């Protein structure tokens, strides 16, 4: 821990991007990052940012995210967000958030039926506090994707007010409606941001790009100003 601002990565059995996300959180200035085991409830005010990482929570049994949504950590998430926490759901984290009905829509199997692992180009189309700033709009970021159930579709029965700040640019790799790559919802004083691409894998430069740095640094600065 190198700072006094508390950020956490929720761990489920089967999470496999938890280490990557924690490594990124720990490298950010002023952030004290830690794991949070899924069986432990999340208390209001406990964390400034809560990361729900990629992987295969509970083996993706039944539907990706369907079992994880029942965990104690998820039960307290809505109240924590209303009180001001910012949730970042990446890949399986996105699936868990739609299964929990905190975000609208659903994630279907990729149109190709295949697991896709590649760098994806993403066009920034809207602000999403604290992750995307106005100055980012119009930029094209490259984040890796690695999923089989990333085909995002809207649902007519969802009344949640959410926006789509990131879209696949050029190729739509998984068949998502309109090429949506991320969904964002403000809730009370906090927010939920979920995306299939992995910004934490585009941070240290090993994947030939480091576009994720801006994404995470935005949040560090924006939340500090709030």
């Amino acid at each position, binding site marked *: 821990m190198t700072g006094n601002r508390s950020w956490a990565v929720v761990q489920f059995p089967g999470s496999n991007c938890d280490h990557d996300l924690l490594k990124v959180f720990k490298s950010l200035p002023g952030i004290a990052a830690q794991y949070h085991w899924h069986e432990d409830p999340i208390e209001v005010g406990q964390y400034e940012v809560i990361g729900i990482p990629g992987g295969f929570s509970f083996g993706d049994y039944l539907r990706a995210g369907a079992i994880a949504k*029942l965990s104690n950590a998820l039960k307290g998430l809505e109240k924590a967000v209303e009180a001001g926490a910012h949730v970042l759901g990446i890949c399986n984290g996105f699936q868990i958030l739609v299964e929990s009905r905190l975000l609208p829509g659903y994630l279907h199997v990729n149109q190709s039926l295949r697991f896709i692992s590649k760098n994806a180009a993403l066009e920034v189309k809207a602000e999403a506090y604290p992750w995307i700033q106005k100055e980012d709009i119009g930029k094209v970021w490259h984040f890796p994707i690695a999923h089989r159930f990333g085909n995002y579709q809207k649902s007519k029965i969802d009344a949640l007010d959410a926006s789509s700040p990131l879209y696949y640019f050029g190729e739509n790799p998984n068949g998502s409606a309109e090429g949506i790559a991320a969904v964002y919802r403000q809730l009370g004083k906090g927010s939920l941001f979920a995306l299939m691409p992995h910004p934490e894998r585009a941070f240290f430069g090993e994947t030939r790009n480091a576009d994720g740095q801006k994404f995470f640094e935005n949040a560090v600065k924006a939340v500090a100003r709030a």
Partner: protein
Amino acid sequence: MKTFQLKVRVRYKDGILDPQAEAIFTALQKLEFRTVERVECDKLFMISLKAEDEAHAISLGRDMAQKLLSSVVMENFEVEVLKP
């Protein structure tokens, strides 16, 4: 309390494309089952449980389907008690 056998069938709502069913349909065509018109891939859960009576067993099955077995946004479900 008596033991009942429940059959919970979960299937995609109308209008939701099922790429897996499409792939199976195409494969059946390749095998020259040319009269096949449609394929659906459902999930079937066979559940044994104790309940007061048949209505109670169905009520519990519906509750399970709504809370876990199905995704309310993309799937419908049917619950049936199997006769002994």
